């Protein structure tokens, strides 16, 4: 539990307001620095600094960063009051503030808050929500935002904010005890947020009550100004519980399972068939790519299935158009015969290049491409068919049997430089009978790179099975998406229901 002394400054003086009323002011001298030093010497690790003049007028004052610069030499300072722009926030952070406290801005310009969270980091932004009768007030408590506390917390969360300071105005400066039920309810509802309590703390007992309800930090104003020894006595008694760092629940998540629509392209059109034959038209590749990106696809794979030497320019042109249109990574494969081919595709805007038949005929091609593009951008596509007790590698779109064991080939491909494997089951492709999870699992057992499951995705559960039983890192499908059997989001929802991490 951390106690954060509040320092409210109005026209250079340290003051307290009763319930935010600018007519009911108590002054506590005009030397915030001396006060901060005293607090630090009593064990405070950070202070909560508010420029009340600015909070009231809504105009950020450069005297605040100047004060922060002085105070932050003594202790951590979170500071706010009148912040209205990214520049205001940057000025405070650069002056040494450990975090900036915003209030009104959240309601007036949530987009700016969202930007600040991205640019300055989640820990650097605290949303202060001042609550009166369930509604949040803004502009130095003088106006209502119209939002309920719950709506305001959700809004903050949508902006990426993880730290909120909740003040119960009815309790503030009134010394009738904190509203611990309110904090307990918030912590339950928003388990991933740090809730800082404020308002109404009178004594050690109040602080203990808050701690019992799970609150990790509390801002204390008047009680400390009136009785500075309170801080010392609490810290002495609870030194073991004092933590300098914010203790937030750290979640282990790792990488999301990727859902990848695959676009087989022939003569500039997307096509789809069964077992690599019987092709049907499925639309314009750029339009489809845009649609999938908007629907939440994590990545796209384009396979140029008629790749011939005279078609190379068409492919480069397509790659460039797709790169202009989408904001997610994409892989292009088909007809890549040399490191130069691969390089040209990357230059045209592709993120990764997949090689298939050419690498089977000339395995050192993988070494060359990995050297040129980096392992992360080098994908080896493997078409496999069940044969005997295992799987054999097919080339030329399934027409030839390379008489190589698919699992052995997968291992070799990775050893040579493939940073990812795209494993297609020829037996299942286009059938909708589910991915060949045995094939996937056997390959996953042997390699330490991501494996994309392909071929057979028909029902939603087959995607979940590919991850659960095949241990796939990504799932790829074509027909089900092209012909609207279900959407990328449907697949993600099923994965999430089964507790696999997905980007939603």
């Amino acid at each position: 539990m951390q106690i954060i002394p509040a320092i409210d400054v109005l026209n250079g003086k340290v003051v307290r307001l009763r319930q935010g009323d600018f007519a009911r002011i108590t002054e506590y001298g005009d030397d915030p620095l001396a006060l901060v030093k005293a607090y630090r010497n009593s064990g405070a690790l950070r202070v909560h600094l508010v420029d009340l003049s600015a909070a009231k007028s809504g105009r950020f004052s450069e005297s605040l960063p100047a004060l922060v610069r002085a105070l932050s030499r003594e202790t951590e300072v979170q500071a706010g009051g009148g912040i209205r722009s990214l520049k205001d926030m940057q000025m405070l952070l650069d002056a040494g503030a450990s975090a900036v406290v915003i209030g009104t801005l959240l309601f007036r310009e949530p987009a700016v808050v969202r930007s600040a969270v991205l640019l300055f980091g989640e820990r650097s932004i605290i949303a202060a929500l001042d609550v009166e009768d369930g509604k949040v007030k803004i502009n130095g408590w003088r106006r209502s935002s119209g939002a309920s506390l719950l709506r305001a917390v959700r809004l903050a969360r949508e902006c990426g904010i993880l730290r909120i300071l909740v003040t119960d105005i009815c309790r503030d400066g009134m010394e009738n005890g904190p509203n611990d039920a309110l904090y307990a309810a918030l912590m339950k509802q928003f388990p991933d947020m740090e809730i800082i309590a404020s308002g109404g703390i009178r004594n050690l007992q109040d602080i203990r009550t808050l701690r019992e309800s799970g609150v990790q930090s509390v801002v204390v104003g008047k009680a400390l100004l009136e009785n500075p020894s309170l801080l010392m006595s609490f810290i002495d008694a609870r030194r073991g519980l004092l933590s300098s760092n914010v203790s937030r629940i750290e979640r282990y998540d790792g990488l999301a399972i990727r859902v990848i629509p695959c676009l087989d392209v022939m003569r500039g059109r997307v096509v789809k068939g069964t077992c690599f034959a019987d092709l049907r038209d499925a639309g314009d590749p750029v339009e489809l790519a845009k649609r999938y990106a908007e629907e939440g696809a994590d990545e796209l794979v384009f396979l140029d299935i008629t790749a011939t030497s005279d078609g190379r320019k068409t492919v480069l042109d397509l790659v460039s158009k797709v790169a202009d249109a989408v904001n997610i990574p994409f892989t292009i494969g088909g007809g890549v015969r040399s490191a130069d081919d691969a390089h040209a595709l990357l230059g045209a805007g592709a993120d990764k290049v997949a090689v298939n038949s050419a690498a089977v005929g000339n395995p050192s091609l993988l070494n060359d491409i990995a050297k040129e593009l980096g392992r992360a951008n080098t994908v080896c596509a493997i078409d496999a068919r069940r044969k005997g007790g295992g799987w054999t590698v097919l080339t030329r779109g399934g027409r030839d049997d390379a008489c190589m064991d698919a699992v052995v080939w997968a291992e070799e491909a990775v050893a040579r430089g493939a940073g990812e494997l795209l494993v297609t089951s020829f037996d299942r492709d286009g059938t909708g009978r589910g991915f060949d999870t045995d094939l996937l699992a056997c390959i996953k057992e042997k390699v330490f790179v991501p494996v994309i499951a392909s071929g057979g995705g028909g029902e939603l559960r087959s995607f979940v099975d590919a991850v659960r039983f095949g241990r796939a890192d990504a799932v790829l499908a074509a027909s089900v998406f092209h012909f609207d059997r279900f959407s990328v989001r449907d697949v993600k929802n099923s994965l999430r229901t089964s507790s696999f991490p997905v980007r939603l």
Partner: protein
Amino acid sequence: MNIPSPLIGILQSKTGNTGSVERALRRLGISVRMVRTADEIAAVDGLIFPGAGAANAAMTDLRERGLVDVLRNYRRPFLGICLGMQLLFDSSEEGKTKCLGIIRGRVTELPENVMKPHMGWNRLDSGAYAYFVHSYVCEPADLRTVTMTVEHGGRICAAVRKANFLGLQWHPEKSGPVGDCYLLSFASLCR
């Protein structure tokens, strides 16, 4: 309110593929110009350094073009992406490279026991997913410069900021709506 859109420069390098970032900015309606020299850098409102390829080659390229001090003394918003972020630090294990030394700390190789390269969509502290592709990771000396972390065999640094210098280990140009939002935010910082 009619605020003129800032002009963002993308620092071209011999080693890096700058196309994706340029395309992303154009797609978002942000004015963009490729820059190579100190004069060209001075003419834009903010600078993005995508940086790809190997650390050593990229630093050699910057040195040969006389840009090391230009970048060190840059005062407008600067965004280094992936290798462009790593080069902001003192040094990198990749090719034992001395880097720009703008942010204290070093860049180390990801350990053997995690998937390397760290590639795919990983979850930032905020819960949003961002697209990563890298094998080296920044270890800032001052943890206060870290603005985002991500889980990959332990918490690793996903973004940094020191004064006007921002760095992203992930690729905003490939990270869907979150990436778009980051690039627009950067542009608004450059106004």
